[in-house]
């Protein structure tokens, strides 16, 4: 690869000059200093680098892809502000104080950068701070945090962008074969960005001082100290394509393997994107689902497993922005924009904050649109109506709350819990007024009489972060705690069983109403009101057991192939041994063989030891004082997404033949000992 890339870099230099114009279009330039006469930008031929923008053109103040796209799209609209700027860009936070992220989160990221660039307090952490992955929902200031920290800590960011425009330009303007794929370019970008230090430092100069509020003040990086660089990946190659993904993994691995004393840290910004769909149910349950078809990118598809578990990767997860922080930030923004006479009332601000779900970008957008509407038509309905009309955003329900809604089974007229806030009580009362009482049932059905439920199943279905299969698993794992007697359990268990068996064999025959049936069935069967005994919601044990079962199945297969092999040596056909017969009937023999005193057999004659996964089964009588309800508790921050990924991870682990809890930990600790060199003297990790 190395000779090839050096060839290409020379081509690139030529091309860089030819493609000066194109770099304007996509706003990416590698430090175009006016003073610098030799414009050698080997990278701009391939990529867009998030470098200093010329501060004179306001339209290029943003290098960020998504926002840029919005900008281009919105600019012609006459409805926008006089200068056509979006508030999101106008009032981009300039300092940590303006950032609506929790201070500790920023501190975490800052520490990482410190360690990555200078090596932390002991100066030895640098080699382990290679990749930082910032994850979290969209609009939680992940990229802004990086930008602000880059100013504060004085490093420059090289950003990769997928730009299709270049492909075309290249094929026209150079003699190089146009079949150079996006990925090759990406690879070249990464290689160069992490290696060609000298090129960058020489071409990096101080740019003009344009610290107007419209553009972020340029990072004044003196040439001497500008060798702190990071690579920022916000756009990625199409890693959903399995080939591209494995290529991507290879590139990342090879980057990590290089023993550069001062590596360039890579920061990957990854917004969560969800998957929904019933088609996954069957595969999930049968345990044989490939990740390939699922259209979601997360850290586990992004990075190979070994890298992810290795010491080089750190993940910092951004949470949705807390309403208080969000409100403060929005208020500050309004104050800056309107001064004291803001047309946005406090009430409207509340609605915006409520509906934004912690997405600050969407909140600011909503505010801006609201202010435009107000300017054109000051008396356009109530604030509620107005804001709701512009912030129609799918509100997703956190899994924790979804399950809470179902399990607490609130019905009309339920007394509020003692801890409820006055606001919530009022909300409930308002809801109760709107709820219609169901008609009285005839006497023979009187046992099915219930008060109207406060839970709207259609709404929770629309907002559910998980599909019906996972939903049913969560219900299954937890329903017993919320029932007071067996009859209620019976109702729910029967519904679970019924919903699971409804529909046909193929994926397209799956009953589309499973979620509704399960939710309604559960609500109907649970007692009203559910006694509050500080129940805790647990994650399903299902997957863990599924994995154990798969392991045992492997054991059965091993034994079966052993039997068949023994037979084929003697010329007998023994494939009549069914797995079932092996699992249920062979136990006695296997145990007898397992006795160490039995005569020693040659290794080929010995029954494979993996039979123990299925042959021995010890009954432990449940002790009444320890009632296990589940292994892992669900917390408020968890979303279904994360968990279903957990299942995949387990599956992957199983592929790698490390599956069981205990075994797993052993592997980890051993591996860790190997990875962390003792001389490192790590203070914190």
């Amino acid at each position, binding site marked *: 690869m190395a000779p090839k890339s050096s060839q290409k870099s020379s081509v690139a230099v030529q091309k860089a000059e030819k493609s000066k114009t194109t770099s304007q279009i996509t706003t990416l330039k590698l430090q175009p200093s006016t003073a610098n006469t030799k414009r050698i930008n080997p990278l701009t031929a391939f990529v867009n680098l998030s470098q200093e923008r010329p501060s004179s053109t306001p339209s290029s103040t943003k290098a960020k892809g998504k926002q840029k796209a919005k900008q281009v799209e919105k600019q012609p609209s006459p409805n926008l502000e006089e200068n056509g700027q979006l508030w999101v860009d106008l009032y981009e936070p300039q300092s940590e104080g303006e950032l609506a992220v929790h201070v500790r989160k920023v501190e975490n990221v800052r520490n990482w950068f410190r360690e990555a660039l200078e090596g932390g307090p002991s100066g030895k952490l640098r080699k382990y701070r290679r990749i930082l992955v910032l994850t979290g929902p969209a609009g939680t200031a992940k990229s802004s945090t990086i930008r602000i920290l880059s100013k504060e800590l004085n490093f420059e960011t090289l950003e990769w962008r997928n730009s299709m425009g270049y492909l075309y330009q290249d094929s026209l303007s150079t003699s190089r074969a146009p079949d150079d794929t996006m990925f090759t370019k990406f690879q070249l970008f990464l290689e160069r960005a992490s290696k060609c230090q000298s090129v960058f430092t020489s071409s990096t100069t101080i740019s003009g001082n344009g610290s107007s509020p419209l553009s972020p003040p340029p990072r004044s990086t003196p040439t001497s100290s500008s060798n702190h660089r990071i690579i920022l990946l916000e756009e990625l190659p199409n890693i959903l394509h399995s080939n591209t993904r494995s290529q991507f993994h290879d590139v990342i691995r090879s980057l990590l393997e290089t023993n550069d004393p001062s590596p360039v840290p890579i920061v990957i910004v990854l917004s969560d994107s969800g998957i929904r769909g019933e088609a996954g149910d069957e595969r999930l349950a049968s345990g044989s689902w490939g990740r390939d078809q699922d259209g979601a990118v997360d850290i586990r598809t992004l990075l190979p497993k070994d890298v992810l578990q290795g010491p080089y990767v750190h993940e910092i997860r951004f949470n949705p922005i807390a309403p208080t922080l969000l409100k403060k930030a929005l208020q500050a923004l309004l104050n800056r924009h309107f001064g004291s006479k803001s047309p946005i009332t406090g009430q409207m601000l509340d609605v915006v904050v409520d509906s934004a779900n912690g997405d600050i970008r969407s909140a600011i957008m909503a505010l801006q649109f609201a202010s435009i509407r107000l300017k054109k038509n000051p008396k356009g309905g109530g604030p509620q109506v107005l804001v709701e009309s512009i912030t129609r955003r799918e509100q997703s329900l956190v899994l924790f709350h979804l399950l809470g809604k179902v399990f607490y089974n609130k019905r009309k007229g339920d007394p509020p819990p003692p801890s409820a806030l006055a606001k919530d009580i009022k909300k409930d009362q308002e809801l109760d007024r709107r709820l219609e009482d169901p008609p009285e049932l005839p006497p023979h059905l009187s046992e099915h009489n219930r008060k109207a439920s406060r839970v709207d199943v259609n709404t929770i279905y629309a907002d559910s972060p998980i599909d019906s299969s996972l939903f049913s698993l969560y219900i*299954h794992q937890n329903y017993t705690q919320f029932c007071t007697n067996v009859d209620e359990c019976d109702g729910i*268990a029967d519904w679970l069983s019924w919903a699971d068996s409804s529909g046909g064999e193929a994926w397209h025959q799956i009953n589309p109403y499973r979620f509704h049936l399960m939710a309604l069935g559960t609500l109907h069967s649970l007692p009203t009101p559910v006694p509050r005994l500080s129940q805790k919601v647990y994650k399903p044990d299902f997957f863990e057991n599924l994995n154990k079962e798969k392991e045992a199945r492997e054991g059965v297969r091993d034994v079966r192939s052993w039997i068949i092999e023994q037979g*084929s040596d003697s010329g007998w056909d023994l494939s009549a041994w069914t797995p079932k017969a092996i699992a249920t009937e062979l136990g006695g*023999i296997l145990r007898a063989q397992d006795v160490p005193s039995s005569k020693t057999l040659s290794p080929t004659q010995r029954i494979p030891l993996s039979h123990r996964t299925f042959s021995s089964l010890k009954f432990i009588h449940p002790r009444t004082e320890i009632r296990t309800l589940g292994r892992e508790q669900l917390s408020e921050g968890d979303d279904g997404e994360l968990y279903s990924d957990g299942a995949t991870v387990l599956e992957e682990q199983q592929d790698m033949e490390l599956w069981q809890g205990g075994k797993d930990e052993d592997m980890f600790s051993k591996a860790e000992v190997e990875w962390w060199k003792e001389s490192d003297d790590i203070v914190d990790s």
Partner: protein
Amino acid sequence: MSLWVDLYRPRSLEDLHYHNELSNRLKSLASSGDFPHMLFYGPSGAGKKTRITCTLKQLFGSGVEKLKIDQRIFLSPSKRKLEINIVQSNFHIEITPSEAGNYDRVVIQELLKEIAQTQQVDLNAKQRFKVVVINEADSLSRDAQAALRRTMEKYMSNMRIILCANSTSRLIAPIKSRCLLMRVAAPDAEAMQAVMQHVSKRAGFDLPPDVATKIINDSGGNLRKAILCLEALKMQSPDLSGTLTIAKPDWETYCHKVADLIVSEQSPARVMEVRQKFYELLSHCIPPTVILKTVADRVVERVDEAIKADVMHWAAVYEVRMRMGSKKIYHLEAWVVKVMSLYKHFFYGMDLTGFD
């Protein structure tokens, strides 16, 4: 060292110990030159597979005993690779669809097509067709069965199919109607006694008849289980003297204890405990149907006459659902909860009308 079950398995139709009429019939079928598709069915351990192998030998001679094990790779529709071991001779091939899991249709189709499209080239072969033996035919998915149905007609000229199943109820009617059905019933105690004595003679020791009777009583007509049990017993105490206790398999004792759990307490917390036990059983590859059956049998023994029928009724209901659904544990648990509820209501003498 093969197991005794395999070591002393009869190799030809003449060697079979019981069901002599069936053996004669098979012999005449094999020599008639008009061999049909066949479906052998009967309880496990009754000797279905032994009879199939013997029939094959009758058909093709000792050539069928020259076996080779191939590892074949199939591609599932989603480009997943399936590695499957296939046992075959020059004259026949065996498939165990459960190895292919969800993709049995692909495997069946590929294999059958391949066999059907190749002519028998061995001029010395006794028959012009090859035989495909499908073990556990009742675990074939609907898709696979439908695929089979067409192939059975189309390639009749150079292929015969022998299916082996525990019960015909899970096979679709078109397949049943295309096959000659052969029922292999479980051997009676006398026949089993004879076989056990035969095995012990071949293995070179004397089997006291009372030990054999004990084993036979315990095995419930499953000859394989009986012989395995005998071998295990012989391994544990080589002289077969003293008081011999025939240990039940772990999972069976486990199931019985689960049944005891169900009967002894009926509460939501107990449901959780039983669930853990079920998970444990499932993760030891005990088929859910077997679990349900064993536990239900035991529960029925322990409960009052009045609700026995209901317990079994619901076991049947949830067994059907289990087949249709995908998450076995739901149905096992739903049955447990139903039984608990029934039991509790019976206990408190409450009215059960309208309780469905």
